[in-house]
């Protein structure tokens, strides 16, 4: 135990720390939290690196901050993005992978979620909650300029977040902020201080301001809608200088970037719409980096000496929601449990991902989250129990039902695996595999069920692709909580809702784990959604790409990347 560090941390606790920060340090002192979890939560609460280092040193767990490696400067990186953006590049409306990847190269957020699920300061340098985490105060980075030449300040954050939470703006970030932050909740304190007054206590709110909410790119207060691709006007290391829909984009180094000079001169993005074409481009030397690959379609790249795979463990997953409100066998929780019990998850993970994935346990709590309660038993294949449950529900001979899904990645294969699996207990599962466009077509609001008529939210059973989140909040509030905007199972449970509210407001990891455990157990009992796996985010590049790390959500961050 380092006495000097102990004195420093004691002084910090007396003079600066609030109750949340003190709880966190107590947890560390009592050994109730791992070093990694402490760093993750400390960054979330806005503790400075000095305080984090002192706390760890005080409790005999020294923290080594790695020095950046020297990178060779110069060159233009050829990046392949697949599929292309499906609509205009307008950050607050990002809803597709191509759009978020294109925006992420130039854009910056208040905070950044790292590979290890810690938070790094970006356009905010520190953040601090009030006692019950309903008001968060962010200090903004001084001396930052937009690429248009204007100075960055609180007005810009205010305008950006007002657009993100405005129900009439077409914002896709409402899936994250609905019930958390409402219009009028963002207040400017001074030019470099902003406050977020939340609808309810949210301990992990800083994560929602990070790159995990990929729509939250900070833009100037006088930003004009539709001008993102016409004028460079973000704060990032690269300026978007040219954009041709469906074809490609060009970025040049931003000489005025607050973080210094990025090694690369620029980036040339080419959009692809065919897996074979993009793989051939990498193998044929016409691209340096593919921003995202799927194991199912990119097998040719694995074990190739000319290719490096960038793999990041995350919470990207597929959900198999089963409508709990329709007059069919799925209404009975025992039937839904039986279906979940037919799946051999380790075998599925091996077949579809060559083990580059974690087995799911039918809740959004991925193994990668520190708050996941690992004591909750893992659901395993058990055909006998599944048959018993089906018989008890009154379907000893099974039944027929249709599973609707989209032709994306390995999903059709997963659908076939589920079809074969449930056949063992007599269920005749018919598959209806649509294009992604058809699957997501239609309204998401209104109608008798409240979720419009789009197939992905209204069919009896389906499979949908879900992206990574640094914290499970948005998954809980949108897909599980009663009335969630993407609650495809139409699941309603007061018990689960209470546990979700308690989880979202919990500060200490131990409390989060307690409520996570409650949610996990309740979801296993009710099984509104099967979560078969959480797979690693994969990117691929030639061996000359240095310093690149894949982001679990798919953002392409190249400020530290170079070419050998």
């Amino acid at each position, binding site marked *: 135990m380092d006495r000097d560090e102990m004195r420093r941390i004691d002084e910090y606790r007396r003079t600066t720390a609030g109750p949340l920060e003190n709880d966190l340090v107590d947890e560390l002192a009592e050994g109730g939290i791992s070093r990694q979890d402490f760093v993750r939560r400390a960054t979330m609460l806005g503790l400075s690196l000095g305080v984090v280092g002192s706390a760890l040193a005080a409790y005999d767990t020294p923290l080594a901050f790695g020095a950046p490696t020297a990178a060779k400067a110069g060159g233009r990186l050829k990046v392949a993005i697949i599929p*292309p953006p*499906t*609509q*205009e590049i307008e950050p607050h*409306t990002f*809803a597709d992978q191509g759009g978020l990847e294109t925006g992420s190269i130039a854009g910056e957020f208040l905070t950044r979620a790292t590979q290890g699920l810690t938070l790094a300061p970006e356009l905010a340098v520190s953040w601090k909650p009030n006692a019950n985490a309903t008001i968060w105060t962010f200090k903004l980075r001084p001396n930052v300029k937009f690429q248009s030449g204007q100075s960055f300040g609180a007005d810009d954050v205010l305008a950006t977040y007002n657009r993100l939470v405005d*129900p*009439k703006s*077409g*914002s*896709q970030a*409402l*899936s994250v902020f609905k019930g958390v932050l409402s219009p009028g909740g963002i207040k400017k304190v001074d030019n470099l201080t902003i406050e977020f007054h939340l609808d309810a206590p949210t301990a992990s709110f800083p994560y929602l301001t990070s790159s995990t909410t990929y729509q939250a790119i900070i833009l100037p207060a006088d930003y004009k809608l*539709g001008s993102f691709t016409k004028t460079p006007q973000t704060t990032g290391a690269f300026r978007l200088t040219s954009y*041709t*829909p*469906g*074809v490609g984009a060009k970025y040049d180094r931003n000489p005025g970037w607050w973080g210094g000079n990025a090694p690369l001169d620029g980036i040339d993005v*080419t959009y*692809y*719409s*065919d897996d*074979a*074409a*993009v793989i*051939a*481009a990498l*193998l*044929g*030397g*016409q691209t340096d980096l593919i921003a995202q690959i799927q194991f199912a379609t990119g097998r040719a790249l694995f074990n190739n000496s000319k290719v490096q795979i960038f793999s990041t463990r995350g919470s990207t997953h597929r959900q198999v929601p089963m409508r709990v409100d329709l007059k069919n066998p799925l209404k009975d929780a025992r039937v839904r449990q039986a279906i979940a019990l037919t799946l051999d998850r380790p075998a599925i993970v091996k077949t579809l991902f060559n083990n580059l994935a974690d087995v799911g346990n039918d809740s959004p709590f991925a193994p990668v989250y520190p708050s996941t309660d690992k004591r909750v038993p893992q659901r395993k294949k058990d055909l006998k129990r599944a048959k018993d449950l089906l018989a008890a529900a009154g379907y000893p001979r099974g039944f027929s039902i249709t599973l609707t899904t989209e032709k994306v990645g390995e999903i059709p294969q997963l659908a076939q695996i589920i079809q074969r699996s449930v056949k063992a207990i007599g269920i005749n599962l018919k598959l209806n595999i649509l*294009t992604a*466009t*058809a699957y*997501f*077509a*239609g*309204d*998401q*609001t*209104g109608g008798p069920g409240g979720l*419009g008529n*789009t197939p992905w939210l209204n069919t009896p059973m389906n499979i949908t692709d879900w992206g990574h989140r640094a914290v499970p909040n948005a998954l809980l509030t949108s897909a599980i909580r009663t009335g969630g*905007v993407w609650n495809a199972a139409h699941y309603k449970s007061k018990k689960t809702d209470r546990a979700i509210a308690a989880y979202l407001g919990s500060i200490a990891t131990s409390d989060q784990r307690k409520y996570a455990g409650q949610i996990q157990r309740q979801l296993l009992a009710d099984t509104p959604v099967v979560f078969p796996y959480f797979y690693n985010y994969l990117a691929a590049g030639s061996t000359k790409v240095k310093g690149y790390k894949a982001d679990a959500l798919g953002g392409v961050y190249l400020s530290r990347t170079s070419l050998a």
Partner: protein
Amino acid sequence: MTLFLLSVIVFAAAQLLPGDIGRNVLGNLASQKDVDAYNKALGLDRPVVVQYWDWFSSFLRGDLGTSLQYKVPVADLLGPALVNSLKLATVAFVLVVPLSIVGGTVAGLRRGRLRDRVITVAGLSLTAIPEFVTAIVLILIFGITLGWLPVSATPPEGAGVATQIEYLLLPSFALVAVLFGYIARITRAGVIESVEADYTRTAYLKGLSRRQVVVRHVLRNSLLPTIAVVATQVGYLIGGLLVIEKLFNYNGIGQRIYIAAQNKDFTMLQSGVMIVGVVYLAATLVADILYSVLNPRIRYGSAE
């Protein structure tokens, strides 16, 4: 008249596509009220006939409208795509037309012999193989294994003519494989018919050499059906190369139309199809003129 009919069909087909433009543009989280207001602002609440006339008259004036998907002028997207498609079609035509005519002529003149069988069987086999298979095999061999040719058809910005052609070679080879058998077969049939015709026998009796007979009489007459067939392939080569454009990541008009249909970008879809239709009609017109030049009976028939 053809263009008018095409415009009616295209417009009607676009109306039949499922989905709502406002919903598609504003996203799934927008309220129905906002969606309705957006549709009204676009004039989509007007009678279909009014909408049709508005669109078609604008198209005739050269105003292609604004892409609903990308919010930029359609002409800015379709223009470069059309130029790209014309470039690819030109390179493919330059390769496949002479090759097929020579192949078909040799096969026709050597009817039933080994060369005829080799050319006919090889042509048919290549035509029977789906174009994506041919394309992938070509990419694997010439692009990845040997590294001789670029695997993507889009050249670097500012590339010269030679580099652009180099980038277009692999997709052109794939198209040659698709079209060679078809065009060569038509040419072969025409050559066989011409060789057996009275005027050919007369030419030999007049004492002309075999070379003179083939060039002046056999080819001139046998190419007539070939020209008609080649002209019909123009529409395919300009607007129907979706698979080739996707595999070689080429920004052609076929891919633009396909993406527009997928995303219900009606303004782009309708204009794209109309442009392909115009190109097709122009190619047919050129073929008719060429036909009349090569076939005196048509010219004289018209004069009478």
